Structures are given as C-alpha cells and as structure tokens.
C-alpha cells in the first residue's frame, strides 16, 4: 500500500507545481459529498482483513460504501474511472474468496523470491495463485513497470484504472473546473458589469 500513498503524494505534488498555491486551496475547498462513505469503506475493509472470518462480508460492505460514494459524486470528472477501477478490483477479489490473486511469475520478478502457490502474503490483500487456479486471473495483480521499476509493485488492471481516475479527479479539483468563477486568496473575482 506504500506505493499508493507515494503515487497520491506524487500526483498532488505535480498538481501543486502546475497550479501553485491556488491549486492546493481549490483541492482543500473542493465539495466532495458524503465523504464519510469513503472513509467508512476503507475502515470496514481494514477491519475485515483484521478478522479473517468476516473478510468476505466486510469486503462486500466496503465495495458498496465506496461505490456509493462514487455515485454520490458522479458529476465530478474522474469519478467514473475511479468507480470502474474499484469495481474491477472488488470483482476479482470477491471471485477469489476475498483475496487478490497475484501471478507467481510477476511476484518473482518483483521481489526476487519464489513463493509457494496459495501463500497469503502478510500485510497485503494478495494470495499467490497460478492463473489456472484463480478466477478472472487477468484482473489480478500481474502488471509490472518496465526495467528496474518492476521492483516497485505488481499492479492489477483495476489499480491502473483507479490511479488514472484519481489523477483526472485531482486535475479537475486543482484546476477549478467545477467552478471557474471562484476566486481564492487575493485573486479578484472578474467583474460581471
């Protein structure tokens, strides 16, 4: 999960460089609705992974909360991509008993370690599953960045779609596309006369 935090920080830093302080202020003041749904979805999922017997039910509840948040904010750019990414990841996880299947070859290339099939990887959502043992294996963790960057992470298609959506939403938020008439700080509001 560290790579996702770094990705978010990187995207915000790019936005800050491009739009400056105004971009950060727009991000802070952006009206996302029912944010409690996103926070609850995250909390519920973490609880589920802490108590394995409830993992499947908590993952379903988490998916519902997250997708409900996306629906409530569907008019914002990027939200459809975010919802699609979440849906892809949740679909493959629910199809595999609430774990994300990770391709053994991709894991070997990333970590340099051969991991026995069916191993649950500590501190992650992943279980090592060969393609013939996983449902919807093509939606699982199997994508690597090129060259030495392959050691950073193993991604799923859903992860890629989700990050594209977050990037689009951040651009939309920091550029002020939702309300181009808002003025921040000392900037003057254009006269309507």
């Amino acid at each position: 999960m560290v790579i996702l935090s770094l990705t978010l920080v990187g995207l915000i830093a790019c936005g800050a460089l491009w739009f400056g302080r105004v971009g950060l202020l727009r991000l802070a003041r952006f009206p996302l609705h029912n944010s409690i749904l996103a926070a609850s979805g995250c909390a519920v999922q973490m609880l589920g992974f802490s108590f394995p017997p409830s993992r499947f039910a908590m993952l379903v509840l988490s998916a519902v909360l997250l997708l409900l948040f996306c629906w409530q904010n569907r008019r914002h750019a990027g939200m459809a991509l975010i919802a699609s990414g979440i849906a892809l990841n949740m679909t493959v996880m629910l199809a595999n008993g609430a774990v994300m299947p990770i391709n053994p070859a991709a894991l070997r290339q990333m970590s340099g370690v051969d991991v026995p099939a069916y191993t649950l990887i500590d501190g992650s959502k992943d279980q090592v599953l060969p393609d013939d043992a996983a449902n919807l294996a093509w939606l699982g963790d199997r994508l690597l960045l090129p060259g030495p960057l392959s050691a950073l992470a193993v991604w799923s298609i859903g992860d890629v779609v989700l990050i594209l959506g977050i990037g689009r939403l951040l651009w939309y938020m920091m550029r002020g596309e939702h309300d181009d008439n808002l003025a921040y700080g000392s900037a003057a509001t254009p006269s309507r006369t």
Partner: protein
Amino acid sequence: MNRRTLVQSVAKFVVAVGILGSLLTAGGAPLDFANRVLPSVQPK
C-alpha cells in the same frame, strides 16, 4: 489570509487528501516493495 483561515484550509486539505487516500487504499490492491520481506516465505 489570516491564521484561522489558514488553519481551516490546512484541515480541509488534510481531509480531502484523506478521502482520496481512502479511495486508493480501499479500492486499490497492488503488492509493493514494502511487502518484499515475506516472513512466511522460504526462498528456494
């Protein structure tokens, strides 16, 4: 921008980043370099 407005803006910024972080953390599922140490795994 006075101090109170600044504090409010920082708080709102933290909340906004937290929401985006929640979406990424709960919606995403990559396995990353932080998981490279795998105590339950015996290298061949």
